[in-house]
């Protein structure tokens, strides 16, 4: 019984660690240590999506960027270690009748904390 008691204490401590990790991650976003800036440009009927990301926190981040235009889908992945700053881009040829582009950025911090950022953008040719 004592062993189970000690084991549960270890899990309580692990939980406290997880909570502090989560709070630190949210604070890092609030303080601007983690910044993700998506930029869009339409050039010659082509949509250029550029994601500029900076990670000045102690967390390891994985960004999955997904762009959907009608049936078309483009995606890319960014891995950000502490102190990293990366830019990646994708381009999609737009059909004439396209009016909206859906952007989804999935952020996975330390392989456990997951966030989804979505936005529907209006395209003006």
């Amino acid at each position: 019984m004592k062993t189970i008691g000690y084991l549960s204490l270890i899990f309580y401590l692990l939980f406290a660690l997880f909570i502090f990790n989560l709070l630190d991650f949210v604070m890092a976003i609030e303080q601007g240590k983690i910044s993700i800036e998506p930029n869009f440009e339409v050039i010659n009927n082509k949509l250029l999506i550029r994601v500029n990301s900076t990670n000045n926190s102690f967390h390891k981040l994985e960004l999955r960027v997904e762009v959907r235009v009608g049936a078309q889908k483009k995606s890319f992945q960014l891995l950000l270690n502490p102190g990293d700053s990366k830019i990646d881009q994708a381009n999609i040829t737009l059909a004439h009748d396209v009016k909206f582009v859906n952007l989804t950025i999935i952020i996975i911090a330390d392989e456990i904390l997951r966030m989804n950022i979505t936005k529907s953008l209006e395209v003006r040719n």
Partner: protein
Amino acid sequence: MIRRRVLTGFKSALLSAMEFIFIAVFYQMVSLVLHEPVNLTSLAPFIIIGIILGFLQGFTDRTPFALIPALLVFIYELFLLVYFSRALSGETLISGFTVQYNFSIVMMPLIVAICLSGISRIFKEIEKLTS
């Protein structure tokens, strides 16, 4: 005899109060960062129920009824866990972007810890009853 039981009950209630205040503080901290601060008075009923259960656990110690409060505390802790995990998921709007988050996975170690401590407490009571 009754006086000793009441004293043990109060001691157990105090420990229970500390445990539930600790959980409430964690809940408040997480809510403060992710949403908005929770009114602490809204958490008072949860703490009071926890204290009453703690008192019952101490009061019924070394009696054939000791298993009932131990089981109740275990169930109540699991219920609180599910209730509080709501604070870890949600949706917000930041500069036109819809941000959805679900951090309830951080509750996993707490579920395991509560199950282990609950099981150990229940077995301890069974051992006391059978010995």
